[in-house]
């Protein structure tokens, strides 16, 4: 059976894809629902082998695991799908977080009301950065985006009005939704919100992949000059890629501020950008599930194994070098377009 053969060859991606295709729509609905169900139960699984000695398991699931997955998905649109190297992704995370912190402490808006504002501001920032930066080639784009990330952090550091080096404290938690309370001691509610955000993001990316935007991004990644000659408005779609990625980062930031209740510039360093990049690269650039898996592993392991935690950045750096040298496609390589297109023909014509 093909699935077994694929598994034997270590080809996780194709065996997963095979299994999904062979299943009828009803079977797929059941699979998807049970998968989501299991994921939702994750906060209850923090015992035994999975337990994290350093911090509370529930808290870990939200940050770093959940947030890293979310941000890695966002960065994946930029780096994985469009082939644009962004080393300043943390800036959007910071913008979302600071928006929440500032509006939360100075106005009566709650987290849910700030969320769209945070996302919008992050997207605008993405546009502002993208307009000059996206005209540049790969390595220059990388440096400029890196610079942007640092500028945001340093500006926050030097601006007394928004806390300077001390940051902003007493950021309000989100208001309860019915019986579900958001608190520091019990982070389950936060986790479920992150989970919903992740699912929304996955839905959005999958949908766009088989439409014009996804094609444009792929074409840009593979051969930007030819893409333009074939009529793809490359600047527009690169800007979209940047903005969407930024918006996702901003969303994560808003929730993060609401969770940690106190934010400071030192939380938004270049290291975070690199960490998220490592998740994307290690997991499989361009592949949603690869990125989810990669982010989960890289975010979770330092919490589980103390010695990795101390050398966390070193491990991530090694992950980058080793992955690029030995398995440049990452854990779960980019899904073969053959499968995506064949599947989508069913969706589109229905």
């Amino acid at each position, binding site marked *: 059976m093909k699935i077994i053969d694929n598994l034997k060859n270590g080809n996780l991606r194709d065996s997963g894809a095979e299994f999904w295709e062979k299943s009828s729509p009803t079977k797929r609905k059941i699979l998807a629902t049970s998968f989501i169900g299991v994921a939702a139960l994750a906060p209850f699984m923090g015992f035994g082998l999975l337990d994290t000695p350093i911090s509370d398991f529930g808290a870990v699931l939200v940050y770093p695991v959940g947030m890293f997955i979310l941000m890695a998905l966002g960065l994946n649109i930029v780096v994985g799908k469009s082939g644009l190297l962004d080393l300043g992704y943390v800036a959007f995370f910071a913008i979302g977080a600071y928006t929440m912190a500032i509006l939360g402490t100075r106005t009566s808006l709650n987290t849910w009301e700030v969320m769209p504002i945070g996302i919008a501001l992050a997207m605008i920032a993405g546009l502002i950065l993208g307009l000059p930066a996206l*005209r540049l080639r790969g390595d220059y784009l990388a440096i400029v985006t890196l610079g942007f990330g640092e500028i945001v952090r340093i500006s926050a550091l030097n601006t007394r009005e928004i806390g300077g080096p001390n940051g902003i404290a007493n950021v309000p938690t989100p208001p309860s939704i019915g019986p579900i309370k958001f608190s520091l001691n019990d982070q389950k509610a936060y986790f479920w919100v992150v989970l919903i955000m992740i699912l929304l993001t996955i839905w959005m990316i999958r949908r766009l992949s088989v439409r014009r935007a996804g094609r444009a991004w792929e074409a840009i990644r593979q051969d930007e*000059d030819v893409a333009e000659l074939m009529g793809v408005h490359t600047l527009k779609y690169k800007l979209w890629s940047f903005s969407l990625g930024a918006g996702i980062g901003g969303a994560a930031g808003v929730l993060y501020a609401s969770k940690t209740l106190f934010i400071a510039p030192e939380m938004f360093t270049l290291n975070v950008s690199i960490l998220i990049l490592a998740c994307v690269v290690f997991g499989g650039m361009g592949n949603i599930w690869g990125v989810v898996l990669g982010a989960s592993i890289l975010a979770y392991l330092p919490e589980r194994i103390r010695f990795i935690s101390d050398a966390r950045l070193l491990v991530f750096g090694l992950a980058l070098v080793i992955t690029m040298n030995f398995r440049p496609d990452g854990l779960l390589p980019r899904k073969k377009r053959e499968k995506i297109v064949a599947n989508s023909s069913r969706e589109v014509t229905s």
Partner: protein
Amino acid sequence: MVYGVLRMINFANSEIFMFGTFATIIISRDFLGNVDGSKSLPLPKLILTITLCLVGSMIVSGLVAVFVELVAYRRLRARGTNKLATLISAIGISIVLSESMRIITHSRPTLNPRVLEKKSLFEIAGASFRIDTVLTIIFAAVLFVVLDRFVTYSRLGRAIRAVSMNEDAAKLMGVDLNKVISATFLIGGLMSGAAAFFYTLTYENTKFNVGFTLGLAAFTAAVIGGIGNIRGAFFGGLSLGLVEVYASSILGTEWKSVTVFIILVLVLVLKPSGIFGEAVQQTRA
């Protein structure tokens, strides 16, 4: 130089520099036993210290550079991987190097005991020139001339230029590509090592992340002058240094790196080829 040959930025340059600074301190403090630091060393010992540290720093940086090339670039280059992957690999090795040093030094700065008192030698227009500054300038000028001559007249220099102009033709002419690329990295490393020595001499301390800000400034200088062009780099370095100082005095030192970044973005957007160099925008069909 690395850019000229590989058409890619050497991200790990900052770490190559950083290792040079540590080498300087280790040679001066541990091998030569200069721990006192209260006044200038007697001339013979001073000359010995400077020579050994300078050479040692250059060698260490050169070796680290070759190591970086072997680990981060070579394998991917052989496979013809895309630029993005190579870039990421370079970033990875850069992190591995700086983090390793951070762990070794426990994130604390390391001090370089003083070997040379920073006496002022002379003044021009109210600006006083300290002895270490003068030394740095003289050596930079000498090094620049040496490098320029080397690249223009020596056999290896010609090979490097050939590869930077047309890799395939160079290979057909019998140039050993691997050797040339390693040599380019080595030379770049030697330069960084020299810079590292003078940095440590002047500022008398170093830290695992010392390379970052400087690396950024170096890159900006190269871009201003026109990347891929050695003379441009010289000019760029000079002008950036001046701008930095003026900006610091007007805006305050906290904003220094932001200023550098903004200059970088402005140059890249407005005059991407810098003053002397080649275009950095998307290569055209």
